[in-house]
């Protein structure tokens, strides 16, 4: 996979890093951005990536390849497929904020309200996923988390004051 990917893109995919909330980093993954620049400048590369991603997934079942499959689908504007891949990536590593936001933006483009729910409450989703001992990220489990969040009054619209600075323009 590494060699093939390099031959197509000119760079290596690199390891998948966990962007844990506590580390307070905007994003750890750089692959999505690099692929976006490359595919925007040379759209024909997307066809090559799409033709190979199936075999990469067979070769390596990991958070890294699931995220990569999600990126390729997202670049292809196949947001259903992208969301599905990012859900698998979240299942494999639910502490990784990058995967949660990638999932959220895939749903955003599908005009799915769950996209907004995750964007506005990303930290609550990560925390409740762990607390509720959820084993698989899927539509049903996301709805369970959302219901629990509303039940506990943790949704952002329920307490905006906590995030409004004193001096508002």
């Amino acid at each position: 996979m590494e060699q093939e990917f390099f031959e197509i893109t000119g760079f290596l995919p690199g390891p998948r890093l966990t962007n844990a909330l506590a580390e307070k980093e905007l994003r750890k993954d750089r692959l999505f951005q690099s692929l976006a620049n490359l595919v925007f400048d040379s759209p024909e590369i997307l066809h090559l990536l799409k033709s190979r991603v199936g075999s990469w997934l067979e070769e390596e079942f990991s958070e890294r390849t699931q995220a990569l499959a999600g990126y390729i689908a997202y670049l292809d504007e196949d947001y259903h497929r992208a969301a599905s891949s990012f859900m698998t990536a979240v299942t494999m590593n639910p502490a990784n904020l990058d995967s949660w936001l990638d999932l959220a933006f895939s749903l955003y483009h599908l005009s799915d309200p769950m996209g907004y729910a995750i964007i506005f409450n990303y930290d609550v989703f990560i925390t409740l996923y762990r607390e509720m001992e959820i084993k698989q990220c899927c539509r049903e489990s996301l709805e369970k988390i959302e219901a629990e969040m509303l039940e506990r009054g943790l949704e952002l619209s329920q307490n905006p004051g906590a995030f409004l600075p004193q001096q508002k323009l």
Partner: protein
Amino acid sequence: MAFFEKIVPESFCREFVEFRGDAHQIVMYMSLVLGIKPLLDDWIPAGRLDEYVSLCRSYGLHVKADALHCSVDPRALPEDVVGKEYITSTSALGFPLNTEAGGNVHVFVSKEKELLGRGMWYPVIVRNRMIEQPRIDILKYGEVLGYPSCCVRFFRHYNNWSRYNFLGEIHSRTAGSPHYYCNPFTKDAVYSYIYHMPCSYRCEATISLVGRLRSEIQKREPAFVDAIDRHLALPFLVFFERRFYAFEGFIDNDRLYYSKVHFPDSWRPGKVYLEMLESGNNLHISGDTVHIFRGRRAVARIGPEMRENEFERPFLLQFGRH
């Protein structure tokens, strides 16, 4: 009519100006209603969203409310906001639409309902963290907004203020005389047919796009079109991004003769040379220095030592009608 005064269409889309209290993006609204521009985004006071949606519907436009944005002074933000280093002077906090927090609703507007889903998330701070959209969404958004693909790709490569004088790059790629349809300098002052940066001041795709738009607006608002045309044909002195000036005057033999100077941009720091330019009535550029005269008497000079950065270089532009 004097230059750069408030302008309002007689009738077509006039309600948008009345709703907003200014004519910001009015030509883009016209383009949307005419079915030329596919999508635009705007910010609407939260308490007036229903009124805005009704107004759009009266023109056959669909609206999708995205998120609530509350403008905030970056200095008022807590130190621990993740991504604070990327925040500009126009930062905002983002909230769900049903939040009681005031602010403005970010909206997408289109004549085609299905295009609303192509709107792009705008970077805002959510729960003490900057939430940015994926890079590919930014790259593709120009075409979603209806900008010519040649201009979108040019923008992608040259809109880097730390490496290029973007306006100068456009100038250097302009073969032939600049066409007034491709004048982007007055877009913040309403007097413009485009809201994108062209890849050339004679970009064929932009000329074609504006030709259709101008023709349709002219059928409905001829005086409005005349006013825009007059402004677009003014001579300009350009230094750098957001640092350019319009003149009531003319260029003859590389010398600009003028009776009045205007700063048409909305970014106030760009006004830095205005007073010096106002002290004269003609100027010319020698090397990288602007020499300003009143009659034959030299009154000021704007030299390289006054530049904001190494890429700032002055040039004169006169947009023609052919």
